[in-house]
């Protein structure tokens, strides 16, 4: 497979230490790659270097095999969608979409046809005469998407395109985004801090942490097998602990059951479980989660799990057993198949006393 975008040993340093450090990245033809990470991880900086708005301090950027490191954005044939939409307020929707075609000196009949097609593609065929200011945020971002794809760019760059929209619209528009990318067959790079968004739309995810790749893989690979504490916690594995005999592992709160301690010793065989004390309860609507502090060989650890026998509807099964409150003794039961070993985390030297 040919790589449409390739970064080789790319670094960016604004003077206060590297923001992106020695990054190698390849985006294949037709692929939708997500750059995922918290703010400050270097994902937007990486995108701006692909677009050409920033020149790497070190390393090379290749687009379709050509060295584009020093090529200005306007000569790169990129289609960029910004978080702020960045539509030209003084031009109509159709004129906005036509802007890139005009710059490419494409004649009026073809321009009109392609603008029409692009607006149809994003479902705004009727709104060509409106001004951006008359559209909703979601509609504006669709226009921005049409403006970026109409020029048939080598690569479509999406810089947090959904972050300014409210939650419902975000989910709806991300489906649209994935559909447009699929239908146009464009190679795309999506920058986002929203793991759910990355998981839902991308073919491959690259998780960035402090300017370096923490892990990459398909959404399923990443979600099911995070390799480090950072990636695990970023993907919602709230519990990271050192399991005696197994090294560092992670488990999601929904795979941890918290039940009242019945006084009997934890079973030696069977499910992995620990006894501890409830620190905090949080009502989540469909269930209640509990934070329980348990003593492990490496020291006390706080684990989050779902309270068993307590439904979200208060009083629905109040007779199900004793309820737990802060300070109460509780047992935490980890669902064995849901435990993920963090292969990239260094194992702490543990005294192999009594392996579970």
């Amino acid at each position, binding site marked *: 497979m040919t790589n449409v975008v390739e970064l080789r040993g790319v670094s960016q340093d604004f003077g206060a230490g590297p923001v992106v450090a020695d990054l190698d990245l390849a985006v294949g033809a037709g692929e939708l790659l997500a750059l995922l990470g918290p703010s400050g991880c270097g994902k937007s900086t990486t995108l701006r270097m692909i677009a050409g708005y920033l020149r790497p301090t070190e390393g090379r950027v290749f687009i379709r095999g050509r060295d584009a490191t020093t090529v200005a954005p306007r000569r790169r044939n990129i289609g960029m969608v910004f978080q*702020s939409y*960045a539509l030209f307020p*003084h031009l109509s929707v159709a004129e906005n979409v036509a802007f890139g075609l005009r710059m490419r000196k494409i004649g009026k009949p073809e321009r009109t046809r392609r603008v029409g097609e692009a607006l149809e593609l994003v479902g705004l065929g009727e709104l060509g005469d409106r001004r951006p200011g008359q559209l909703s945020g979601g509609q504006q971002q669709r226009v921005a998407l049409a403006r970026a794809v109409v020029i048939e760019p080598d690569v479509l760059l999406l810089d947090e395109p959904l972050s300014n929209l409210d939650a419902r619209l975000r989910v709806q528009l991300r489906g649209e985004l994935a559909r447009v990318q699929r239908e146009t067959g464009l190679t795309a790079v999506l920058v986002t801090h929203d793991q759910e968004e990355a998981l839902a739309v991308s073919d491959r995810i690259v998780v960035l942490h402090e300017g370096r790749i923490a892990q990459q893989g398909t959404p399923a690979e990443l979600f099911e097998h995070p390799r480090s504490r950072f990636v695990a916690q970023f993907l919602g594995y709230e519990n990271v602990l050192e399991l005696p005999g197994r090294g560092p592992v992670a488990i999601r709160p929904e795979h941890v059951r918290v039940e009242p301690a019945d006084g009997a010793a934890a079973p030696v065989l069977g499910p992995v479980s620990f006894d501890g004390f409830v620190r905090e309860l949080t009502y989540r609507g469909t269930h209640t989660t509990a934070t329980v502090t348990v003593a492990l060989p490496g020291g006390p650890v706080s684990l989050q799990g779902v309270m068993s026998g307590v439904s979200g509807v208060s009083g629905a099964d109040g007779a199900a057993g004793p309820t737990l409150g802060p300070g109460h003794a509780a047992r935490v039961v980890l669902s064995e198949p849901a435990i993920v070993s963090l292969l990239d985390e260094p194992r702490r030297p543990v005294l192999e006393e009594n392996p579970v």
Partner: protein
Amino acid sequence: MIRRRPVLSLLTLVTLAFLLFPILVVVGVALSRGDVLRFPPDGVSLRWFGEALRYQPFTDSLGTSAIVAGAATVIALAVGVPATYALHRRSPRGRRFLLTVFLSPLIVPELVLGFALFQLFLVRAGFDALAALIIGHSVLLLPYAVRVTGASLERADPALEAAAAGLGAGPLRTFFGVTLPVIAPGVLSATILSLLTSFNNVPMSLLLTSRTVQTLPVAMLEYVQTSFTPMIAAVSTLLLLLTVAVAVLAERLVGFQQVFGRSAP
């Protein structure tokens, strides 16, 4: 309104009267039929308006004022707008210092600046008074061009220019096709402010005029030193009407923002 807040209403009326009364006096005197500045006027006529429009020092200086205001505004904008753009978008070294330099004509007393320019242009370089006036006023207007358009630029999304560049527009194309239309309301405000400021300026004009070239306010000043007829009130009234007309025009052009459909308020 009046019944609900009597004290506030009264204060408002008093303030309005305080602001408007002198203007009413000037307009009243201007309509006088007599030969002396006096209020209330002796009868009503448009006599002094006719006299004023026939009085050559006024008509000549009106032309000079218009030329100076127009030319100085164009120069101030031509220098100030690109400078502001560079200062806001390119953030060069010494940005704060440069901004201060551009705004300094607001701080330096005008008489000092006027005298410096008088020495430089009229005495040393031997410029004629019209050129000296235009250059002097340009310097005076520069802060308006820089500050007012700068405020517009700060409100505008810098991603707009990045978007234009990404779509293939060169720097000039981006500036004239995207930046300038977006900051147009700011440029318009700067233009109106500049025209009015130049047109009403006295201290600098006073120093940069010659016997043959003077601006209207300077000519008026000279006139009142020797004569005391209602003609000066008539000219003042005309000047007032012109200013009001510009203000109304500006007010009308605020709808211009809606025409341009600025998404960011």
